[in-house]
């Protein structure tokens, strides 16, 4: 007999590099808005802005928190994989630190995961900060450019067109629930995409190639500031060019892309 909802602990993997105020905001929102038991795994990519002190304080206050500290910044993809390696729970959520989660966000993701055994990955409704406007509800990829297109971008928060769980070609890595079976089948994110970008879409395409559904949940909502880390000068220098990642992705998956709408 299967018990619904599943009462197991959820692991939340959050890579961070500086921006401690965002991290604080994010972790506080998790503390306030999560009913399901959870453990946070922060992978600190060599922050120098007090992130470390904040995390220690938080752990001392009883927050279920594991910290992995890298002396240098190996980038997003590798940090996520380090975090994933430290999880053994049935459900894992990848989360960016420049997000604020809304009430029932974990339950809203788990609920949709439970709707069909073939669903392997679920993402939330992602909102612009401080606005009731949708940034993304997962997305799709168009031919040629390999360009990613967030679905629902610019629609109002309660637009009924984005009120139903639906399949997407990919779920944004900024918040992605993955079930253990998928991690066992696929392993971790592909480090060919290091330091960052397209590893999330690639993971979803791999999951779908193995018969899993990647689905958007309208019952989970988060705010996403987006590109907070990527905008830092020292990070931007490294991430300036995503053409390499784009090319790998395009080469692997071009046969799966949606046809160009314009032609």
């Amino acid at each position, binding site marked *: 007999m299967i*018990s619904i909802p599943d009462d197991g602990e959820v692991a939340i993997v959050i890579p961070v590099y500086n921006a401690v105020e965002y991290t604080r905001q994010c972790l506080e929102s998790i503390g306030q808005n999560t009913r399901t038991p959870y453990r946070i795994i922060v992978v600190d990519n060599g922050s120098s802005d007090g992130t470390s002190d904040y995390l220690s304080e938080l752990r001392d206050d009883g927050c279920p928190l594991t910290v992995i500290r890298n002396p240098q910044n190996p980038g997003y993809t590798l940090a996520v994989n380090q975090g994933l390696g430290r999880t053994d729970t049935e459900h894992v959520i990848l989360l960016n630190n420049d997000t604020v989660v809304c009430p029932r966000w974990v339950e809203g993701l788990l609920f949709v995961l439970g709707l069909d055994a073939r669903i392997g990955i679920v993402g939330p409704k992602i909102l612009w900060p401080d606005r009731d406007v949708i940034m993304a509800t997962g997305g799709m990829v168009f031919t040629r450019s390999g360009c990613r297109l967030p679905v629902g971008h610019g629609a109002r928060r309660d637009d009924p067109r984005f009120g139903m769980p639906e399949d997407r070609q990919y779920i944004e890595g900024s918040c992605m629930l993955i079930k253990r079976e998928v991690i066992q089948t696929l392993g971790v994110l592909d480090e060919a995409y290091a330091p960052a970008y397209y590893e999330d879409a690639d993971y979803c395409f791999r999951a779908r190639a193995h018969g899993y559904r990647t689905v958007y949940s309208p019952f989970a909502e988060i705010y996403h500031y987006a590109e907070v880390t990527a905008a830092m000068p020292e990070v931007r220098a490294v991430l300036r060019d995503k053409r390499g990642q784009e090319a790998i992705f395009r080469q692997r998956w071009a046969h799966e892309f949606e046809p160009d709408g314009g032609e």
Partner: protein
Amino acid sequence: MRVLMLASEYPPAKIFGLGRAVHDLSRALAEGDDEVHVLTNSIGGRDQDTAMAGVNVHRINYPNPPQPPDSTSCVVQFNICLVERAHQILPDLGAFDLVHAHDWLVALAADAIRTQHRIPLVTTIHDTALGKYFGELDRSQQYIAFTERWLVSESSRVIACSEFIRRELVQDYGAEPARTDVVPCGVNPSLFSAEVNLPAFRSVFAREGERVILYVGRLDPEKGVEVLLRAFADLLGRRSSLRLVVAGQGQRRQALADLVEELSLEEHVTFLGYVAHPALAALYQSAAVVTVPSLYEPFGLVALEAMVCGRPLASSDAGGLAEIVEDGKTGLRVPAGDVGALAQALESLLDGSDFAGRLAEAGRNYVIANYSWDRVAEQTRRTYQRALSAPKMPHQNLLPRRPERPAAPSAENVGSSDGRSKADSGEGR
């Protein structure tokens, strides 16, 4: 008996729900003395042949699917793949007693396989194009109707899932009544026994204190969801704290979202998309009332599911529902398409009254007594026996008649051509 089932879908894939029924039937047959092999579609990525609950499942190998230009061509392509796969596996599997086809999507392959292996064909018709598509049929719908008619006329025996479908087959498709049996689908009560933390489950889609009216099914025109939305709007005028939960997906999804906006129901309607077990069981348990508002319904599986979950049921009287739901005893039944009557029926069941409780309990007992898969398997075996004792030769009704011809000049030719023609008509090559 050794049975080769052909089905366009099989779990874990689900498109129309047909696969679930084929799986449950196959499993129940296999639990008896029958050996069941299912030949079916690929599910992408995980296409190994497997044994599921005593049933041997063979999936087509479809590594680089071509892209046929339309749905009709897709079906032809799919059937070619089925025949190819059958050709690969059948020599090693040994002889089968019969082929059992489910619906028109596998008609071409079923006919080819039974012709080649000279075994009877039994066909189950779960619904018909003529009934399902309203108005004039377009070309591809005509093709479906034609294929259905041909399949029915070619089968040694036809199984209709309800008296309603049997009537359609006899009246509209020219099925021979003496070759047509009614065998319903079954329901497996254990599928609905998931342990649910209801408050936590409900909290995702319903507010505290809201009573949930549940619809489960495809969002296709014949399902009557528009009627339900209007009835729900009507009901909201009189009652508060209601939520309509719509589980399923389909062609009308966008139109229904528009209607929700037009009727200003955004705050009260939740669309869930496709829901599978065990979440489906949890969903039924969350409902105060389940409704099946179909305009056309070949069978009415959702009504049986609601009943087995002990939920009060408000259904239309379309098709097979009239055979399942006894008005005022096992549920409430209203004329299909009648918005006011549906709203009234929902209202009278909403409050968990003794009356609603009595209907729900009677419904549950009725389904458990009459729709077990064991019982369905037994009825299906009887049809198999009849098919074996009176197999129908392929293309008997459709074979063109050779005109009378004067005898050929050479005695040798006459002899050999006679011999061949005897073999042709006798074995039906």
